């Protein structure tokens, strides 16, 4: 009896010990900025004066601010257009690459990660050239097939699609590698048994692979939710002039709006309030997505 509880306590101590490094690093480097941001959200503060307490005024103003609602609309639109196809594509890609007999397997695995490391300037130039209104390759193709060219950047849906393409391009390979690593751990015997039972490849994928990598799926869904709702790099690239998200804010995202208020308008209080609103949205939507994905049959 005593032995067991001693073991239990040892296990507890180990648990705290093994998880403490994160909390240590967080306490030193992560906590202060968060507390500070929350504190500033209840103040009016710009570089020209001292912070002034204004309570909930920032939040009240935000509720009335059409720019926030446009940004929220854009953020969700871009999220759906970019995150869902990206994860599906990544799953499919990982499934393909998990056939270890594919020739040049390590070659493909390296290649799909290249978008993730391509420099922002190169991305801006290439996509700018592909999707230029007058001389872009995509519009050229459209006209070849009899369609009229699209002003990608200035349209609302078109700019969302363009941004989503850029995001999908950049992150699919990344997620594919995550899935691939998880798929490697699925026991071969399961597939063998299914094969014997006459299950098709697709069936095996649905009934074996997906449930077996369920924890990883949950992970990617949550992480992509968090990341997808905070997209700002691609919209920033698209609007060469600044953080506005286009002349009619057609692709302004909440994070971009936050940066605009913080680093372009220098209204730190207002920007911090946006940060809190964004955090709330991220938490809520992450919980929602988690509940959706959780329904995948446990392995």
């Amino acid at each position, binding site marked *: 009896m005593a032995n067991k509880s001693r073991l239990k306590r040892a296990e507890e101590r180990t648990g705290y010990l093994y998880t403490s490094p994160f909390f240590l690093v967080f306490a030193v480097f992560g906590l202060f900025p968060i507390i500070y941001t929350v504190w500033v959200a209840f103040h009016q503060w710009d570089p020209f004066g001292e912070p002034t307490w204004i309570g909930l005024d920032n939040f009240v103003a935000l509720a009335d601010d059409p720019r926030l609602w446009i940004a929220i609309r854009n953020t969700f639109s871009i999220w759906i257009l970019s995150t869902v196809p990206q994860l599906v594509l990544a799953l499919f890609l990982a499934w393909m690459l998990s056939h270890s007999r594919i020739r040049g397997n390590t070659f493909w695995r390296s290649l799909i990660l290249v978008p993730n490391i391509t420099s922002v300037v190169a991305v801006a130039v290439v996509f700018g050239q592909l999707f230029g209104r*007058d001389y872009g390759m995509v519009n050229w193709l459209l006209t070849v097939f009899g369609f009229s060219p699209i002003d990608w950047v200035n349209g609302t849906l078109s700019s969302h699609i363009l941004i989503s393409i850029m995001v999908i391009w950049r992150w699919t390979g990344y997620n594919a590698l995550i899935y691939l690593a998880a798929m490697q751990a699925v026991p071969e015997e399961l597939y063998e048994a299914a094969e014997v039972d006459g299950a098709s490849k697709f069936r095996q994928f649905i009934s074996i692979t997906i449930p077996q990598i369920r924890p990883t799926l949950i992970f990617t869904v949550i992480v992509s939710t968090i990341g997808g709702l905070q997209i700002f790099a691609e919209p920033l690239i698209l609007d060469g*002039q600044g953080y506005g998200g286009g002349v*009619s804010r057609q692709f302004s995202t909440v994070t971009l709006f936050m940066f605009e208020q913080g680093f372009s308008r220098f209204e730190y209080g207002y920007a911090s309030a946006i940060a809190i609103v964004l955090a709330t949205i991220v938490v809520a939507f992450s919980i929602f997505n988690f509940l959706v994905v959780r329904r995948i049959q446990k392995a």
Partner: protein
Amino acid sequence: MFSKKKWLAVSAAAASAALVLSGCAGTESESSSNAGGSSGSSSDSNQKVLQFWAFGDMGLAELIAEYEAANPDIKIEMKVSDFDPHHQGLLTSLDSTTPDIAAIEVGYSSLFKAVSQKFVDLAEYGAADMEGDYLDWRWAHGVDLDGRIFGIPTDVGPMAVCYRSDLFAEAGLPTDRDEVSALWPTWEDFIEVGGQYVSATGNSFLSSTGYVWNAVKNQSDEKFYSADGSSLVYDTNPQIKRAWDLSVAATPIAANIGDWTADWNAGMNNGAYAVLTCPAWMMGYIQGQAPDLAGAWDVAAMPEGGGNWGGSQLVVPARAKYPAEAADFIKWVLSADKQLELFKAKGQFPSTVAAYSDPELLGFESEYFNNAPIGSIYAEGVNTLLPLYEGPKERVIDTEFGSALGRVANGEQTPQEAYDSAIEAIKRDVG
């Protein structure tokens, strides 16, 4: 298991090797770049290392080396960041660890002017004597409402109109630059000529209406704020209204292509537009993007005087470690002699008035631009601008107007709607 361990071991070895090597390489590169042989910021106690933050390579590498050679106890380390992060970072740093010297671009100077007390008053180091050397409207960028001199000007970006003489010829317009300059003494004339060009060729004249806006808004003695800085006049200043109306009027002759986009770069080559308002530094860019069009581009004067696009101030934050040394360097590198030297080496147009009588500057021609005497063209234009107060919310106001013009160009709003929405947005953000 083996591969994982091996990988860990290999990486650990690589990391330690890198650590050792970087230590060695650091010292090595230190001593090879620094003739004195000391290791810079770490150990040498009689050497003062000044940190210099900039938003671009300002062409100062040789001048810095010259200064360091003449002052062996001083070493200047420059760090270039992206444009906006540079200024935001500088602002962030002002209350804790700051650089000794920083460059603030003209567009941001109004913001920093509002916190000018966080910078050293360079008058304490004798900068007041230098005032007469500079264009007064450029000098004004570095002086706040109390007369504190928080920055000294670097170069200017004087504007002229770069035009495609070959396309002008096709449209039946004159091609000689003096004749072309005579075509448009006023902006209204400019737009009319543009209309003629569009009717004759079917192509756009300008790349975007923003060019008209950017020029006209600066061609007076008041812009968005009153001259004494006490009130906002963006909605009452007739010059601003005129700038707006002219820009809107230019919509039919503009191609609605954003600056620095792929279409804009292509347009330099393929005639999507025939004119560009170009400051001195733009010439190098055009040359780089359209090398095959040498001689087809030429330079004429801008309507109603000049314009400015670019230039910066060098400042010394109040919390700098070596303010006296920093001030000394700034005064030296921005003096009339050095600015002229820099022009001859790198083409940065001086803000020091003495340079404008320098025969070499006046005689400076650009082969690419059909041997245009750009030295004298710019020197003329640069003298016409007036000192003009820019306030803390300068960029905010400008951005709103710019977006509004964009919406007009896209056909999303009528000019009146766009103007009203801009005013409304500015009122909400600024007052």
